[in-house]
C-alpha cells in the first residue's frame, strides 16, 4: 500500500477545514446555494439563501425549506426533486419561494449530484437565482402575443367575410345579367349580355386568386392561366416561364384573353395560343397568336384591350401575335 497513513484526528481536521472552506465560498457566492445528503434531506443553506427567506438555518434544514415553497408549486417541485435524486441526474426547475417580506418570488433552481473522492454518492448541490422579472416579462410577452394573435384572427375573419360578400355580390351581378339574358328575345342583345357576363366572370376569376386570406400579393402566372383557362374553352396551348404577377397584371391577362376568346380565334385551329417568356432586365414578353381582324373592328374590344395594356403599363402591338413586354411582379 502506497501513500501516507493519516491519523484519524488529523483526518477529521482536514474534513472540518474543507467544510469551512466550502461554507466560506458558498456564503460569498452571488447565488443562493443549498446542499442535501444521500437521504435527500438538506444539511446546508448559504447566507444569501437565509437572507432571502429571512429564516434560520435550523428552520430550513431537513425538509424545512419546503415550507417556503408556494403551495401550488410544491408537489411538482418535490416530484422533480425526488425523481431526479433517485436517478442521480441533474435537474432544473422553477417555483415560487417566499421572500423574507412575504412576497413569493420565482426562482430557477439547478441541482446536481456530487460524489466523494472515493466515488460514493454524497448528495446534491443546488443553486437558485431570482427570475421573477424574467417571468413577468415572459408573461407580458405571452399576453401581448395572445392579443396580437387574437387581433390577427379577427382581421382574418373580417377579411374572409369581406371576400365572401364581394364574391357573392359578383355572383348577384352575374345572376342579374344571366336572368336578363334568359328573357332577352333579341339575339344580338342576348349575345352582348352573355359577353358582358363572361367579361365580369373572368375579371372576378383573376382577382379571386389575389384576394385570398393569407395569400401573397403576387401569384404564379401558371396559377392565373389555370384559373382563366377554366372559363376559356377556346384557349389553346399555354407556354410560360415561371413569373409572378400582381393583381393588375392578372386582371390585364383576364381582359386580354377574354376579348380574344370571342374575337381572336384562329380559324385553322379553332383556338388561340399564349406564350409568356422572361426576357432581359427582369421583364417578360406576352405573345398571343390569334386573329386580330375582328378585334380591331370591334370598338369595345379595342377599348378593353387598351385598358389591359394600361394595367400592364406597356405599349401593346396589335398584330398577330399580339405582343407586349412588361415588368412582372408586385413592384410594377
Amino acid at each position, binding site marked *: 500500500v502506497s501513500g501516507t497513513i493519516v491519523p484519524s484526528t488529523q483526518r477529521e481536521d482536514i474534513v472540518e477545514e474543507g467544510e469551512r472552506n466550502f461554507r466560506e465560498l458558498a456564503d460569498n457566492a452571488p447565488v443562493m446555494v443549498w446542499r442535501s445528503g444521500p437521504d435527500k434531506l438538506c444539511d446546508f443553506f448559504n447566507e444569501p439563501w437565509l437572507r432571502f427567506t429571512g429564516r434560520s438555518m435550523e428552520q430550513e434544514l431537513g425538509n424545512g425549506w419546503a415550507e417556503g415553497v408556494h403551495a401550488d408549486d410544491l408537489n411538482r417541485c418535490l416530484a422533480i426533486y425526488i425523481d431526479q435524486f433517485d436517478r442521480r441526474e441533474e435537474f432544473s426547475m422553477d417555483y415560487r419561494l417566499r421572500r423574507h417580506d412575504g412576497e413569493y418570488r420565482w426562482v430557477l433552481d439547478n441541482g446536481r449530484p456530487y460524489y466523494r473522492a472515493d466515488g460514493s454518492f454524497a448528495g446534491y448541490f443546488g443553486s437558485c437565482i431570482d427570475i421573477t422579472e424574467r417571468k413577468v416579462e415572459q408573461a407580458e410577452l405571452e399576453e401581448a402575443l395572445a392579443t396580437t394573435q387574437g387581433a390577427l384572427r379577427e382581421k382574418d375573419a373580417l377579411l374572409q367575410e369581406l371576400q365572401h360578400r364581394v364574391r357573392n355580390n359578383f355572383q348577384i351581378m352575374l345572376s342579374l345579367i344571366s336572368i336578363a339574358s334568359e328573357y332577352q328575345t333579341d339575339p344580338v342583345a342576348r349575345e352582348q349580355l352573355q359577353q358582358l357576363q363572361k367579361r365580369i366572370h373572368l375579371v372576378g376569376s383573376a382577382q379571386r386568386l389575389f384576394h385570398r386570406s393569407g395569400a401573397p400579393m403576387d401569384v404564379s402566372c401558371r396559377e392565373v*392561366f389555370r384559373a382563366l383557362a377554366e372559363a376559356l374553352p377556346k384557349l389553346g396551348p399555354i407556354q410560360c416561364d415561371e413569373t409572378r404577377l400582381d393583381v393588375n397584371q392578372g386582371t390585364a391577362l383576364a381582359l386580354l384573353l377574354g376579348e380574344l376568346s370571342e374575337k381572336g380565334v384562329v380559324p385553322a385551329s379553332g383556338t388561340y395560343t399564349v406564350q409568356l417568356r422572361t426576357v432581359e432586365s427582369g421583364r417578360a414578353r406576352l405573345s398571343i397568336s390569334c386573329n386580330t381582324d375582328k378585334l380591331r373592328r370591334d370598338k369595345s374590344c379595342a377599348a378593353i384591350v387598351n385598358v389591359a395594356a394600361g394595367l400592364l403599363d406597356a405599349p401593346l402591338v396589335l398584330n398577330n401575335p399580339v405582343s407586349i413586354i412588361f415588368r412582372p411582379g408586385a413592384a410594377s
Partner: protein
Amino acid sequence: MTGATDVHLAAGPHNDDLKPSQARARESAALQPRRILIVEDELLISLEAELIITSLGHQVVGMARSADAAVEVASRERPDLVLMDIRLEGPSDGIDAAVKIRNTLGIASLFVSAHDDPQTMARAATATPAGFLIKPYTAASLGEAIRKAFTAGQAD
C-alpha cells in the same frame, strides 16, 4: 427562374376510364330530365339557377334558404341532386345539410359557394359531394357542373 413549361389544365370528371358503352350510358343519363333541389339564401342567385336548370331540361323540385328547410324538402321530394350553397340562413350551414341529406337519403349535393378556403373544402369533402362550383360562376359553368355531376355518377 425555371424553363418554359406547358400549363396543364385541370381535367374535370370524365369518362376516359370507362368502356365506350358505359360512357355513352352515363352521357345519356346526364341528359335525362332530373329533379333538382336548390338551396340558396340569395333569391336572385336561386332564380338564375332555376332558369338555367329549367333551360337544361331538368326540373326544380323546390327551393330552400336554410339547412333545416333543405333537409325537410329533400326528405319530401327526394331529388336526384341538391344544388347547395354553403352559407345559409339559420345556425346550420350547407355542409351540415349536405352531410345529413347524403347520410339519410343517399342524395349527393353539388356545392356552389364563395367559400373556397382549405378548411371549408375539407369539411365539404365529408359530404362526398357531386362537385364544387366556386362563386362567381357563369350560367355556362353552372350548366356544365350539373352535367358533370350526373355524368360522373356522383348523383344518380
